[in-house]
């Protein structure tokens, strides 16, 4: 630790502002609005004491979460209620913090993929791709065209599966049980495809710096095409079930409204922003992975409420299906991993007769034929690649908004710093202004329309 003692915030003073400077003046009102509630549970007495001191003995404070079925993970909402009306709501996060950013600094660049895929666990391919794009930008290389196309293919499938989970869980929370079953049913088909390609249903670590780890296995293209055909009619089914369903309309229309200016001010991105009428999508605005060659539209809505967000997400699934078809139609051939022996991962795994992953041809090559190849393999696996010094920020459009990787290298075989701008984390700030004035039941709809994934929020 550093020699100079910087005051550490103690439990008792956790609610105090940092040492005052002349530039800093916060009114009592602002403090009241931004009153924090600590997560240890020791804050309870304080919250109630404050309520009593202010004569609000008709204000009830409840903890929704962190173990609550409708909080999409370990999100804790401290809700102040007057009757059934919400007068304040504070999201409290951190229950799932695992220090991924710090851990990544002690692993090689390739191992970093295994960490980042565990952040936003509903959109793992996006995390992997953004991290690898940042690494490649530092390296100054482009992956082979087939790898880029496969990344797009998998990202769009992943976007559909992520939106399906949103649709399913939000439906469940608002009492539409059928959509929950349907959503998870179709998601399962996507996870089957992802498992075919990567070996795992989630936490794939399939996208690697300079390419992807595996090519599509035989028959997967047909499977994806069949799914796309199927999914179109399934999306129609969802619309039949929900779009004009009076109960769904009652529960979602006008709930969780925020104006476009408020959303931009709160740094919101993704479907929430598009549901307020701004057609901002990084795939169009600042294309990456060759998105400019695919034809798709950016769906928008104007309601900026839960219903508008539902419309946008449903339309996005259809657009993703279009992209998936185009990728399959134009899939280029060639390798899926850079063939530069100093950068590309050497081994291509194949399923051996014993059911284990191995590559007899590769083993034969390095053990029997080429000393060079053996050395490269050994250096790659033990030490990893070296990435030139520099720092980059790479944003991509994840299902929840702008997913940005700020990656710094000092020229070594480990990242110097990996900072993740996770859209769930930033979008969660809209929870408070959206919920004030709502009824408790509507808070659930409003918070769920953010689509927060706490693995991404807490990292």
């Amino acid at each position, binding site marked *: *630790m*550093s020699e*100079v003692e*910087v005051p550490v*915030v103690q*439990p008792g003073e*956790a*609610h105090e*502002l*940092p040492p005052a*400077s002349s*530039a*800093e003046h*916060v009114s009592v009102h*602002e*403090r009241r609005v*931004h*009153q*924090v509630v*600590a*997560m*240890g549970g020791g804050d309870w007495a304080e919250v109630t004491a404050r309520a009593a001191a202010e004569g609000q003995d008709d204000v009830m404070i409840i903890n929704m979460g962190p173990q609550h079925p409708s909080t999409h993970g370990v999100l804790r909402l401290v809700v102040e209620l007057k009757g059934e009306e919400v007068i304040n709501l504070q999201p409290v*996060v*951190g229950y799932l*913090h695992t*220090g991924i*950013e*710090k*851990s990544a600094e*002690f*692993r090689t660049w390739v191992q970093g993929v295994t960490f980042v895929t565990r952040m936003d666990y509903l959109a793992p391919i996006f995390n992997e791709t953004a991290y690898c794009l940042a690494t490649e*930008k*530092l390296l*100054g290389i482009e992956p082979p065209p087939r790898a880029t196309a496969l990344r797009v293919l998998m990202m769009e499938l992943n976007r559909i599966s992520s939106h399906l989970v949103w649709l399913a869980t939000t439906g469940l929370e608002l009492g539409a049980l059928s959509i929950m079953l349907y959503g998870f049913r179709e998601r399962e088909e996507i996870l089957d495809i992802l498992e075919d390609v990567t070996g795992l249903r989630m936490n794939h670590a399939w996208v690697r710096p300079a390419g992807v780890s595996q090519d599509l296995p035989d028959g997967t293209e047909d499977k994806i095409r069949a799914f796309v055909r199927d999914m179109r009619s399934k999306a129609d089914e969802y619309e039949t079930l929900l779009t004009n369903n009076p109960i769904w309309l009652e529960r979602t229309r006008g709930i969780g409204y925020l104006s476009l200016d408020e959303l*931009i*001010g*709160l*740094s*919101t991105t993704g479907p929430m922003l598009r549901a307020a009428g*701004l057609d901002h999508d990084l795939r169009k*605005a*600042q294309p990456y992975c060759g998105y400019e060659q695919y034809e798709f539209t950016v769906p928008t809505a104007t309601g900026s409420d839960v219903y508008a967000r539902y419309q946008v997400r449903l339309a996005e699934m259809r657009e993703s299906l279009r992209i998936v078809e185009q990728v399959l139609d134009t899939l280029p051939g060639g390798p899926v991993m850079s063939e530069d022996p100093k950068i590309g991962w050497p081994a291509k795994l194949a399923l051996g007769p014993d059911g284990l992953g191995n590559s007899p041809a590769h083993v034969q090559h390095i053990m029997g034929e080429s000393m060079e190849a053996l050395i490269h393999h050994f250096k790659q696996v033990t030490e990893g690649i070296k990435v030139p010094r*520099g*720092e*980059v*920020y790479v944003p991509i459009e994840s299902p929840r908004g*702008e997913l*940005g990787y*700020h990656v*710094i290298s*000092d*020229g*070594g075989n480990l990242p*110097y710093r990996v*900072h993740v*701008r996770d859209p769930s984390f*930033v979008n*969660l*700030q809209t929870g408070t202004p959206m919920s004030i004035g709502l009824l408790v039941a509507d808070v659930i709809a409003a918070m769920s329309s953010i689509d927060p994934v706490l693995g991404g929020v*807490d990292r």
Partner: protein
Amino acid sequence: MTEAAELDFQPPEALQPVLTGLRERFEDAIREVSGHRGEVVVELERDRLVEVCTWLRDHPAARFRLLASISGIDYLNYDDRPERLCADYNLYSFDHNIRIRLKVRVTVEDPHIPSVTGVWPGANFPEREAYDFFGIRFDGHPNLVRIHMPEDWKGYPQRKDYPLGGVDVEYIGAHIPPPDTRRYKGGWTST
């Protein structure tokens, strides 16, 4: 502002008027304009940060209305400067479809940076995060408390001199050492 402000690439055309405007108007506030891989980074004096940010948000040539991200960084042993801690602001302009990064660096002894929550309310959580992990004090932030770590946590875990912890195992005195000390004793460093 240093004269070594030459970029080794041509910044996007829409960014030129922003850089010119910044240089004209805030010449004494800019420490350095640098860039890497096509990204333009402007390092600022911390006292002028809010002023520059407001200008960047409101000026018609800039209109950086979205504060995309704030990254806390600890540059210990990265370069020789005593200002170890850094807040890196990533701004995006919907109108001109450009990005710019701002940097403010401070020392560990005086880790104060003015908060930009008054310019972009969305800076609230990201600043709390940078405070939590790096101990950067964002003066004027309405509610600067830890966000991810428990509120009674000691120290700032993502600083470079904050050690990784090992894991105690429930087996006669067994202990899994931190990953950086495991097998590559003395040899497992970043460079």
